[in-house]
């Protein structure tokens, strides 16, 4: 007889981890304790519901303000142009004396940066005293608003497509030095450095090319302007 008699065991084995159950219980307890109660929950729900709307409203307001500001700015510019119209005609009229030109330029300069493009144009097409008045006008605007004046005159000396006469280049250099437009130091330096290339400079300007004596004058002016700017920067 075999001593090893097999025993048949029937039933189910239930393995229960008591620690897992405890942990779940703790989480549930924690969650139930963190849940806002009453009014606090209501406010939070309300904020959640309103937040996208509020953000959208703020962005909309900011955009609207910017657009409205731009429109107002444009309107102001148009109004200024309308008001400047008669004055601009006066500065270009024939039979103008030097003093009259200076007086008209002072009136126009009161329009600030809006008068700058006009002054540049008179430098190009004006008569003897209109041109002198326009340069004085640019200086007057620069007293209160140097930035737009500096940008406009720097654009003149940077131009290489023959948009301006050599006389306008001369006036621009004069204004850059007088204001002084420190940001134009590099532009003036480049201008001065390239001066010896006569053929190059002659192509930069409109109308008849500058004669050697005019070129020498322009060169002296750019040198003087560069010195003024350097002196200003070293202070």
């Amino acid at each position, binding site marked *: 007889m075999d001593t090893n008699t097999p025993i048949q065991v029937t039933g189910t084995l239930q393995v229960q981890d008591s620690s897992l159950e405890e942990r779940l219980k703790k989480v549930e307890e924690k969650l139930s304790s963190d849940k806002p109660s009453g009014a606090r929950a209501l406010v939070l729900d309300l904020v959640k519901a309103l937040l996208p709307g509020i953000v959208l409203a703020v962005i909309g307001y900011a955009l609207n303000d910017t657009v409205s500001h731009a429109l107002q700015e444009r309107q102001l510019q148009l109004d200024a142009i309308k008001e400047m119209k008669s004055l601009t005609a006066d500065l270009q009229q*024939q*039979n*103008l*004396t*030097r*003093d009259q*030109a200076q007086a008209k330029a002072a009136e126009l300069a009161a329009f600030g940066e809006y008068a700058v493009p006009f002054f540049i144009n008179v430098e190009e097409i004006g*008569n*003897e*005293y*209109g*041109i*002198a008045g326009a340069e004085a006008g640019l200086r007057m605007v620069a007293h209160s608003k140097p930035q737009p004046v500096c940008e406009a005159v720097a654009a003149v000396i940077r131009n290489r497509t023959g948009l301006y006469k050599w*006389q306008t280049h*001369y006036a621009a250099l004069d204004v850059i030095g007088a204001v002084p437009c420190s940001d134009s130091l590099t532009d003036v330096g480049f201008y001065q450095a390239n001066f010896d290339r006569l053929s190059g400079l002659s192509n930069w300007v409109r*109308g*008849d090319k500058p*004669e*050697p*004596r005019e070129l020498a004058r322009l060169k002296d002016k750019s040198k003087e302007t560069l010195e003024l700017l350097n002196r200003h920067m070293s202070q």
Partner: protein
Amino acid sequence: MTRAQAHGFPLVLFFSCITSSPLWGQLISCPAASGDAYKIFVDDVRSVSSTPASTSQAKRMGGLRDFIVENLRTMSKGRASVVPCVGRFPSDASVFTDDEFDSLDRLRVLLEVWGAVEDPVREQGALGFVLVPARQVSPPAVFVFRRTGGSFLSQAGQGAKLQVFTPVVLGLIDFQNLKYEDAIPNLCEGQHKLTDIINSTNPGPDPQSLPDQKKLLAELRRITSDAITKARSDPGSRYQLLKPDPDHTFSCPVAGGLQ
């Protein structure tokens, strides 16, 4: 009345007119000035007397102005455009400041001429000349020729003075533009004519502007010598044949160098 008083009277009258007459205002811009060409401005010929000019005198003033325009057109030989500046009239020579010269220079104006009739009855007056390129070399470069002996409105009487300054400014502008060979004939012509004016006896030289005329003449001689020296640096220059003076400067050629 002493001789000095007699000479001083028209001067006092002249300056009193400057201050009292509404015509003697500021310079206005020349209405017809435009373009890039070299220009000669011819301003008004006006009476500056408190006595109004008669119709015939006004006509003669207009005639003198037309004569000036035509004369300068001939003298400029197409090198400069002669522009009649109607309504432009300087109150006196002092309005031609550095700023004024600068504006004229930028517009490529070489010469500006005006006429002031100080006494229409006795035909006394003055012709004024502004030599823009001469400002640097011989300031103030404004010459006023006063004619106190009468016949100011006589066109023939003004011819000699009108012919002096056009070659001077043409020669100077060529010299400043480094065109030495072209500059010499005009510089020499200007020199000769200015010498004639200074040495003239009928009418004699204007004592007021004589020192300035002599100063300009000396500068012209120096510039001409300089121009000849520089022109000779070109082996093909016609001025190679010129011999220097004992002081190593060059004078205008007596013949062959003038056009």
